[in-house]
Structures are given as C-alpha cells and as structure tokens.
C-alpha cells in the first residue's frame, strides 16, 4: 500500500522524475513553483510518496480578483478569488482519482483562507480539452465562465461549498 503525504512544496521534494504529459505543467513545478512560493506569488501543495519523497501530483494556489468592469456586484467592482493556477498529476498516477482529490483539497484550503481573508470563488484556468472533465465527468460544482483562446475559465462558489458540506 503506497502512502502519500500532502505538504507544502520545499527543497526535500524530489521533482526530477515528475511528468504530467504537459510541458508547461512540468516546467512550472520543476523551475518556478518553489521560487514563486518564496516570493509569495503562489503556494504549491505537493502529494509525495512518503518513503522516497517523489512528487506524484500538485496544485498551486494564489490570491487574485475578478474585475467586473463598469458593472458592480454587491456594490463592488472587484470580486476576491482564489486562483487554482496549476494542477498536475504524474502520468503513472493518472486515472486514479488524484485530480479529483486535489480539487477537494483546493476547495478546503480556499475555504480555510476565506475564513481569514474573504474570497468568494475558487477560479480554475484549464485547457479547453480539460473543460469537460471539470464540468461533466465529476460533479464538482464548477460553473463555466468564459473561453478565451485555448483556455477556459471555470469557478466554484465557495459560499455554496461552505453551506453544503
């Protein structure tokens, strides 16, 4: 039985062998995630093998905001959000529910953060290929926002999550 540990990314994690099949995702984890974290630009949580510290999956979260332009919601022209900017699963572990597991972790982390500094949405930026996974394959509460170029933006209302968990 493989035991994993979910932890903040640090120098002890072995990232060299990580491969999600997406070069942008791999490159982010191997080259930018830790420096971003040290600069307080994003926070990365890694699911690692407890014995050899090899990373098998990760998510990166940061604070952001939605600008409502000339319109207002609740009298505000900006909505505070948590951005799930990156999610990656190693190819050896794909199809084993780790993506869904990490969304659950992201939801709970976002809710913890919103108890200290309010944020209303968990926002996900995904490739159009993955859009249906988030919207249909598993009912995770995602709603569609917009498509732009090769990306889709989706969100979960954290208030709905809080009231229904």
């Amino acid at each position, binding site marked *: *039985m*493989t*035991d*994993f*540990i*979910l*932890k903040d990314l640090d120098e002890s994690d072995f990232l060299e062998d990580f491969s999600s099949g997406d070069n*942008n995702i791999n*490159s*982010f984890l191997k*080259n*930018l995630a830790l*420096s*971003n974290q040290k600069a307080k*630009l*994003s926070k990365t949580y890694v699911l690692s093998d*407890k014995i050899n510290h090899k990373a098998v999956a990760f998510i*990166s979260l*940061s604070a*952001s*905001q*939605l*600008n*409502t*332009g*000339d*319109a207002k*919601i609740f009298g505000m022209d900006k*909505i505070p959000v948590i*951005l799930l*900017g*990156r999610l990656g699963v190693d190819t050896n*572990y794909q199809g*084993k*529910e*780790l993506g869904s*597991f990490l*969304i*659950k*972790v992201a*939801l*709970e982390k976002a809710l913890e953060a919103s108890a200290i500094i309010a944020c209303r949405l968990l926002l996900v*930026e995904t490739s159009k290929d993955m859009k249906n996974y988030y919207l249909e394959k*598993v*009912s*995770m*509460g995602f*709603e569609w*926002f*917009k498509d*732009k170029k090769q*990306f889709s*933006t989706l969100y979960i*209302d954290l*208030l*709905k*999550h809080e*009231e*229904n*968990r």
Partner: protein
Amino acid sequence: MMTTTHKKKEIEKKNFTENLFFHLDKDLILTSEEVERLKKSFKNAEVDPKTKEFFQSAHRLYDKLKQNNFTISLEEIQKE
C-alpha cells in the same frame, strides 16, 4: 563576459516572462454579460445532489487528512 549576477538576473527575467501562472490575470475583466451571469449564479443557492455529495466528500477527506498529519493512502483517496 557576463557576470554571475548578470546571468542570475537574466535567468530570473526569463523565468518571470515564462511564468504562465499569471497570464490569466489579463483576462479577468468581465463583460457585462458575464457579470449578469455571475449575479444570477450568486442568487441561485440550489446545489444538485451530486455536487453536494462532492462538497461533503471534500470536507470528510480534509478532516481525515488533518487527523492523520496529512498522510493518506491511494486506496483511501479512491474510496472517498
């Protein structure tokens, strides 16, 4: 010849220009149509049963993680 500090700065500059994590921020300005859709979504408090089950599962799983010092097996992940 490029100094070490210069090289380091060049690498940092390259890293930041390639930091795709933030490319979405430029697109986070909503159109009036998107704002209306969001308002409607905020007003609708209904959550379908499958989504509700997902939300509850997230809460159970996270509680379990906290109780076990954030250690979990693949089997437990798949079970939940």
